[in-house]
């Protein structure tokens, strides 16, 4: 397996500008300079990856590999398949780093959406059996977190989403998870659940509306998604 082609370099100005912004954010503690615990932002790392900075690749992969592998594994329950998908997902992120558009959402959402879509493709190609949607909805407690403070915050965010999903009826929950996590169309859900297409569409829509409403009322904010 040889080394893959690296993305073309285009002006290092963006990478330097991103580092400059990071340097400007370095804070003073106890009379010493301390690089911010969170390190460069995701956007700065993507900018670095886009110009071929190896350091940025290493930091980004180590920041995201557990989340990417975790999502793939929660969808497939297959460690080998999940590993393959995780590897392909991160390579795709690396390749497409130059074209990431922050106006369309966060880096985290972009990375996880790539992972989700590649997992769906892999499941279909191999005709593999995905994780039962009920198990996917219940899997979020298994998180491995490096930073205890982040673990608490992330567990709280996970708990909110799990709780919100539990407030849905079983039929709505299955429809929303099958659509959102497994990419099943309304038609595929109607076939799988043996229900009319209109019923499938209604379950999807009302389930998602209910999920959104519950999350909003529980105080979940966009920040806890990162």
């Amino acid at each position, binding site marked *: *397996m040889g*080394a*893959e082609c690296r993305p073309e370099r285009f002006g290092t100005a963006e990478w*330097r500008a991103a*580092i*400059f912004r*990071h*340097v*400007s*954010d*370095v*804070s*003073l*503690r*106890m*009379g*010493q*300079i301390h*690089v911010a*615990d969170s*390190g460069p932002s995701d956007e700065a790392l993507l900018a670095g990856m886009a110009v071929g900075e190896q350091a940025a*690749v*290493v*930091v980004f*992969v*180590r920041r995201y*590999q*557990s989340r990417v*592998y*975790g999502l793939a594994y*929660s969808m497939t329950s297959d460690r080998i398949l999940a*590993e393959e998908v995780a*590897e392909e997902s991160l*390579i795709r992120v*690396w390749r497409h780093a130059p074209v990431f558009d922050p106006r369309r959402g966060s880096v985290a959402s972009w990375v*996880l*959406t790539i*992972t*989700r879509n590649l997992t769906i493709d892999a499941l279909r190609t191999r005709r593999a059996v995905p994780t039962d949607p009920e198990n*996917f909805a219940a899997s979020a407690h*298994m*998180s*491995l977190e*490096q*930073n205890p403070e982040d673990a608490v915050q992330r567990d709280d*965010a*996970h708990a909110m989403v799990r709780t*919100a999903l539990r407030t849905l009826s079983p039929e709505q929950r299955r429809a929303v998870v099958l*659509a959102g*996590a497994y990419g*099943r*169309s*309304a038609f595929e859900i109607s076939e799988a659940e043996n229900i009319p297409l209109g019923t499938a569409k*209604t379950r*999807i*829509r009302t389930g*998602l509306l209910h*999920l959104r409403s519950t*999350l909003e009322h529980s105080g979940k904010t*966009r920040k806890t998604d990162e």
Partner: protein
Amino acid sequence: MSDDTICEKFADNLAEMALGILTGRERMATLAHVESCALCTHELESLSWATDAMLHMAPQVEPPLGFEVRLFSRIGVDELGARRRASRPRWILAGAAAVVALATGLGIGLSVGSSSPNAKVEAQAHSTTSKPMLTADLTENGSPVGVVSLYGGSTPALTMDLAESSVHGIVTCEIVTDNGATHKLGSFKVTHGYGAWVAPLGVPPDAVRTAQLISPDGTTIASATLG
């Protein structure tokens, strides 16, 4: 947002588009609609946020051993040399060293602007040289776990990059100078063996003989010989 504020005709489609399952003509028609309807655009963004929450809910699970090695090999990255047992590991310039190197490449130095713990660093020009005067391996029980670099200029600085050390938590970084004096540079966080920081030296770089990491109980975790 209640349903009667959005276009009912597209209500189902908006949910399916947010979930990423709308295709074909329905998708094209919905895309065309949201371009001209602010309410539906807002609804789509709001529903997409809820969809993303499900993906973010998935647990973090450490991939199997060797995952990074294979991935970096495919990308062509020379990964941090902790797994390489060469006499001098080849380290990727990362973390604090990269910050200093690129910052000085921009003509930006780092210096203390105030003694207040909450003060931000004032950026000044050309106070730290762009290349390290000295670089040495940081070793823990004889194994290389990082790199220490000293930078000169009017604001001498030390950078330390740590990888695959055994330590996790708060550590203290110290230097020992040629007169035997020990200087504490600061306390920093190491996360499961990884950490990177930059700190002003406060002494001429050529006076530094040793840099070391100290655990909260006073044990020397790792050290580097610099002179």
